[in-house]
């Protein structure tokens, strides 16, 4: 005979938690699947309600932002360069500019941190590589601090700079690719392939002797620091603007292209891109990987930022604001929480990497609830109603219209090809996949 002692079920004092009695027998939990579905639907709606990705902006530059560099060990420091030759060092928690350096004549083309993060180098249109102290604590408004600790004059134009992950070594590019040691004023090595001008270069973060550069003659060149010659070159149909190595996968990198798409390559098999990432409606100008290597963020001339999963064609997220102009620089913070975007209208914006994520410390129960919701969303993600809500994004009118136009153009192309195939000798119009079309040729 059942006879419960209330003391076993009622808390003793008001300060205690209520006693929790669980019985997992399925028969006293009816409608399990349906209730889970409703919960998943609610969680999805909640996610969209709380999706407020824009956090704040950093204003202080007097011209458009040209480049952004992340500090390798400090999450609170960010350095940015602008078109008027100024470099700002930002303190992110206080959202203030701690130092402003008049660095170059003309554009600042590239900034890179040294391995320990104490110094950073910048290149500009004035053919100079300048090394600066980044540590803002030591600064007392002395004029010495406002001056570079080292200046190297280069003989050629400089367009980009990248530092080796471990060694005191950096590479610049312009008319040629040059490798420098920090302590020497002459390049260690000069690498060149044809008469191409290079506009962006980056060191691989894992296989750290590898380098990749984008050229203005629509090609991507791979270099090895230990070799005397460039390794490999692929030519695409349109110009690659920017490139970013995957920090977790030594062999893959993503290229932001002028043809509105991004391409992820496997460096072991360059004749076909591994994946095409669509959805931008103007030239993609910059791209940066998340530290997890599973996602990357891209900025475009269409004034929007998109976040892609590496394995997916379509973006998972689009960020835009009314006043944001063409995106010129982008960075994904090393704690995988924030995205920094620099744009033409002199602002650096801080976004959340996951739009509906709650920032700040979470209680264990909160964490559990979030994990549970995440699992539910995942479980029911293919249900039409949930999918529709999760996928829906408000996009600016011009992007919306442009998407439609691009879709029409694509369909037209397809139709035209079918017609051509229908009316010509069989086999004369071969089937060529989109991926094959992008690569013009591969040289060794």
């Amino acid at each position, binding site marked *: 005979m*059942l006879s419960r002692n209330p003391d076993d079920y009622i808390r003793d004092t008001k300060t205690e938690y209520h006693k*929790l009695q*669980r019985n997992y027998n399925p028969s006293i939990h009816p409608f399990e699947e349906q209730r889970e*579905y409703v919960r998943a639907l*609610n969680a999805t709606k909640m996610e969209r309600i709380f999706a407020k990705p824009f956090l704040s902006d950093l204003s202080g530059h007097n011209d458009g932002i040209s480049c952004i560099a992340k500090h390798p060990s400090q999450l609170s420091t960010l350095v940015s360069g602008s078109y008027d030759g100024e470099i700002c060092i930002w303190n992110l928690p206080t959202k203030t500019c701690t130092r402003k350096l008049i660095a170059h004549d003309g554009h600042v083309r590239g900034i890179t941190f040294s391995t320990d993060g104490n110094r950073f180098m910048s290149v500009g249109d004035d053919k100079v590589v300048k090394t600066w102290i980044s540590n803002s604590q030591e600064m007392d408004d002395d004029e010495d601090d406002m001056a570079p600790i080292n200046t190297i004059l280069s003989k050629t134009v400089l367009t980009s700079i990248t530092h080796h992950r471990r060694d005191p070594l950096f590479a610049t590019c312009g008319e040629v690719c040059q490798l420098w040691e920090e302590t020497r004023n002459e390049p260690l090595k000069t690498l060149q392939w044809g008469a191409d001008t290079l506009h962006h270069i980056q060191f691989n973060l894992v296989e750290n002797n590898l380098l990749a550069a984008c050229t203005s003659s629509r090609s991507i060149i791979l270099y090895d620091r230990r070799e005397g010659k460039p390794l490999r070159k692929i030519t695409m149909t349109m110009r690659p603007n920017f490139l970013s190595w995957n920090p977790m996968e030594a062999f893959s990198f993503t290229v932001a292209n002028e043809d509105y798409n991004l391409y992820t390559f496997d460096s072991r098999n360059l004749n076909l891109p591994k994946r095409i990432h669509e959805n931008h409606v103007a030239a993609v100008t910059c791209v940066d990987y998340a530290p997890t290597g599973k996602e990357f963020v891209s900025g475009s001339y269409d004034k929007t930022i998109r976040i892609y999963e590496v394995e997916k064609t379509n973006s998972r997220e689009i960020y835009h604001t009314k006043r944001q102009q063409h995106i010129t620089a982008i960075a994904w913070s090393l704690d995988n929480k924030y995205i920094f975007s620099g744009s033409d209208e002199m602002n650096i914006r801080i976004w959340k990497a996951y739009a509906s994520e709650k920032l700040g410390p979470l209680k264990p129960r909160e964490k559990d609830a979030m994990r549970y919701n995440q699992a539910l969303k995942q479980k029911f993600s293919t249900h039409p109603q949930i999918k529709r809500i999760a996928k829906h994004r408000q996009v600016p009118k011009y992007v919306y219209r442009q998407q439609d136009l691009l879709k029409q153009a694509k369909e037209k192309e397809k139709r035209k090809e079918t017609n051509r195939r*229908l009316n010509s000798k069989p086999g004369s119009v071969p089937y060529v996949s989109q991926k094959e079309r992008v690569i013009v040729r591969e040289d060794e």
Partner: protein
Amino acid sequence: MDEIKVEKSEKKPFEHKFKKFNKSFQKHKRFNNKYRLQAKELDDKQIKKYQRGDVSVHRGKIRTSFFKHKFLRQEQKFNFASKHSARAEILLNEGEGFIIPDEGEETIEYTQDDIKKNVDITSASKSFNLNLDFGPYNLNYTRNGRHLVIGGKKGHIAAFDWISKKLYCEFNVMEEVVDVKWLHLETMFAVAQKKWVHFYDNKGTEIHCVKKMNDVNQLEFLPYHFLLVSGDDKGWLKWLDVSIGEMVAEFPSLDDKITIMRQNPSNAVTCIASAKGVVSMWAPANHRQTLARILCHPAPLTALAFNVDGTKMVTAGMDKKVKLWDTRMFQNPVAQYHLNSTVHNITISQKNVMAVAMGEVCEIFRNINVDEVDSYTKYLRHIELSPIKSLQFVPYEDVMGIGSKNGFSSILVPGSGEANFDTLEQNPFRTKLQRREHEVKLLLEKIPAELITLDTSQIVNVDVDRMEERFEAKPEVHIPITKLNERKKARSGVEKSKIKQKQHAEEKQHLLKAAKQEELREKKKHKKSQKSDKEESNVLDRFKKKSKK
């Protein structure tokens, strides 16, 4: 008969007797060290209780290793979950137990007084009688088993906490009361009166009168959907969403008059037992059609009941038979019993104890072997002073409520209730604050009425029909044509040209097909857009002549 033993949920073990009667009981004895060790070794039966269907996927048919791995991992996860939920049984507080008769005696001989004498004081206080003059009485317990509302035919309504005997309200509506039902919480209940359905709060204040539900005979409340279902004199079924006050569906059933209506608690399908001997099942969103119709008895039906997990249905008819059905397979009854008189009411408890009312007599059956559905034997008998009108087992208690012409009585039925409740589902000991939080959660998790179907797991299954439809709609473009294997033997020019012609024709056909499909799709799109244009309403439409419907 000098003394009977009633198993207690507490710590003193009756080891040898448990072994004799209920082997599964052993695992509940967490305080017995000997058994605690045993509980760690789980048998398949225990684990199976926590499994949701068959988890093993036939992996031979999966082509890629990626998906093979994925399904394997999924299977492992499911197994892990069910195993650990089974293992968590040792944490359960209470155990259940039936009456163990002395040798040479049978449980059916025991009266309520005998049982009352042999149980503890708190349990004994749960057995009581109320002599009331406004009978016959209908009754309803809340889902946590704590609160009771009774409604006499002559208008008397009382709501109270039946354990502490605290009265919430008592009044007379001065009108015939047909049925009473608690809504989602103990703060509100619905009463089907002579004309309309009225809602009262637990202070007895009338908060609502639903005039759309008139001449109602039976009320049912679907707690997870917030739907109040009514079956009326004219055979109409009506579903009212009590959270937003909207009628979800109303349509006539196939019967002229609805007198017996029950819900299947596992899938919220409303079932009507008719005078034709047929049980019909209804859902609000099923276009006025039955989900199923089962001819149960060749005589008018008199009672209908479902068990908690909805796998069993019990029907009784004028032919004095009681039939037990498996709700997943309706071809034949699983078991049938012939009784001496017509059964007027049936109810099944959480632990599948079945109570049957025949006039003044109430007989209680229990399932000796849990695995065998048809092993019902007589357990207890109770005789009221007047004809029994209604019966209900109290959830999470070993008690049954009986409403009769002379009032209400609460009797002890050891082993009938679920011993261990889940606080997140139902909590008999909840505070006001917890109740409020629970209400919010319930509302947030309200299941839409459209999801009421026979199979609740349909929502997580693959919609095969629609998927096939979608695959068919996909145009077959971009399929490179495979070249015919050319024989190495030299052919004549005629043969070669024939092969070429054939190839060309094939390719052309292929492309034409693709183009045609494309065209069709375009047309469909065009039509759709035209349609949507047409449907757009204009402000001036109101001046147009309305077409007669």
